[in-house]
């Protein structure tokens, strides 16, 4: 009898285990964006995770059907996310063209310029996240160096498209401005320099001992898990899943230019990081090829009709598969626009991976996921 009651008290004690709760966000240095995690930790080991991703919900999907006509839509969705703005404007324009029925008539030069915009966007995003990852590991020096080199890409964007962040170069029916010959030359010159800094980045992330020891084996996502949770983008490719919407959808010229997919098998934070670094090489190559393959010429076609079909477009944003759906009814505004952003697909696996990780490894782990909360909230 006595032992029984003793057992009971022990049971109660175990049940009422008190965890230290560490809130992470919505304002935090490691995260420029508002996302909130609540970690229940024991001895700094995370046991339970709650997340709140809706701080950025603005209602863009509704605004696209009530406030802006379809010609303005690409510029609006560019503001879904400032890091992958070009990646948003392109599928939006493409999906509108498909809903009108003119997507096959888009000139090759326009397609090439769209690809250049997307790849420059991807380059700066990958530089950004790798630099930021180094910073949250407490490695400020690498952060500063990578971001110094990132300014070269920002300058390129500024020169080609007239803005550092929001390019707004893609419109329904083509692109707004061409890349003249002299700018092409500057672009090709700069790409060589950028390639060198990508090499520097690769060296850092493969050779530096403290950084590698910090990231290796952190937050492993196996291939089965990646498939089961349907994760996308560099994260999936780091786990060995062969998926890349650049070859799966046909809005661009990627298939013609011989696109090579970068995959790794490890699935840890370091692999995710290295996939991003190696994709930079591929992006640079694509930009070069895209310039070479097309000549200056027609860059847009006249859009006379309104969207009247249902259409989808999948695009590879820097963070992964970006999915657009539009239902047009022949009016000036579409009936429904659905944006499925890459981070929305990568969020469900976060609690799984973060469990039993030490709290001091949480910021690098989270950053290696490359979450974009502005995308997620819309």
């Amino acid at each position, binding site marked *: 009898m006595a032992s029984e009651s003793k057992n009971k008290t022990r049971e109660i004690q175990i049940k009422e285990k008190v965890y230290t709760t560490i809130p992470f966000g919505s304002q935090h240095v490691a995260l420029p964006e508002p996302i909130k995690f609540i970690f229940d930790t024991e001895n700094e080991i995370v046991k339970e995770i709650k997340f709140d991703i809706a701080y950025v919900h603005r209602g863009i999907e509704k605004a696209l059907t009530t406030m802006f006509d379809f010609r303005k839509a690409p510029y609006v969705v560019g503001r879904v996310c400032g890091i992958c703005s070009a990646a948003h404007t392109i599928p939006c324009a493409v999906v509108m063209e498909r809903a009108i029925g003119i997507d096959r008539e888009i000139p090759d030069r326009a397609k090439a310029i769209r690809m250049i915009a997307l790849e420059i966007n991807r380059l700066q995003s990958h530089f950004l996240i790798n630099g930021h990852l180094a910073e949250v590991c407490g490695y400020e020096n690498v952060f500063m160096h990578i971001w110094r080199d990132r300014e070269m890409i920002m300058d390129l964007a500024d020169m080609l498209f007239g803005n550092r962040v929001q390019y707004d170069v893609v419109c329904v029916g083509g692109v707004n401005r061409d890349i003249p010959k002299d700018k092409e030359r500057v672009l090709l010159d700069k790409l060589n320099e950028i390639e060198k800094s990508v090499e520097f980045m690769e060296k850092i992330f493969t050779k530096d001992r403290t950084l590698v020891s910090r990231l290796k084996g952190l937050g492993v996502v196996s291939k089965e898990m990646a498939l089961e949770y349907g994760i996308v983008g560099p994260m999936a490719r780091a786990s060995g899943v062969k998926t890349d919407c650049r070859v799966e959808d046909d809005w661009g010229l990627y298939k013609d230019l011989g696109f090579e997919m970068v995959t790794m098998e490890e699935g840890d934070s370091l692999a995710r990081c290295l996939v991003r670094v190696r994709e930079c090489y591929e992006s640079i190559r694509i930009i070069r090829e895209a310039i070479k393959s097309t000549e200056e010429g027609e860059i847009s076609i006249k859009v006379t009709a309104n969207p009247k079909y249902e259409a989808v477009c999948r695009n590879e944003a820097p963070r992964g598969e970006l999915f657009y759906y539009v239902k047009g009814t022949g009016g000036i505004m579409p009936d429904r626009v659905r944006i*499925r952003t890459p981070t929305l697909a990568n969020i469900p696996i976060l609690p799984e991976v973060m469990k039993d990780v030490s709290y001091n490894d949480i910021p690098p782990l989270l950053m290696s996921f490359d979450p974009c909360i502005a995308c997620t909230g819309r």
Partner: protein
Amino acid sequence: MKELPPEKGIRNFSVIETTLEKIREKIREIYDPKKVHYIGVDAYDDGNKMEIRYWFLKKESNVVLLVKAPFDYGEKVPSISDIVKPAFVQEWEIADLFGINIEGRVENFFLTPESPRAPLRRGDKLGK
């Protein structure tokens, strides 16, 4: 119930129409993580009737699939998050945005108590 071919009016994807009762079976039938990639959940409201839509991608043929089922306002919609594990986030999202009563939803996941209720709904408005 049979897979509709891509035809005029629908571009770049094919549609599977089903009913609310059979949608779980249908998805269990087509969904296999190795061959089919889950894209997302969506809903649609034309003013009279609502529709729940699940988007998938057949990996080998790169065909986007749309599984959709119509239902009435206020009807309880089954969740598929036990079949397709990552579905819960987007299910809760559209549950909030359309005011759909999806199994296991969390109130105010995307909206805030001060925001308008079910902003994407057209017919049968919910009060604030």
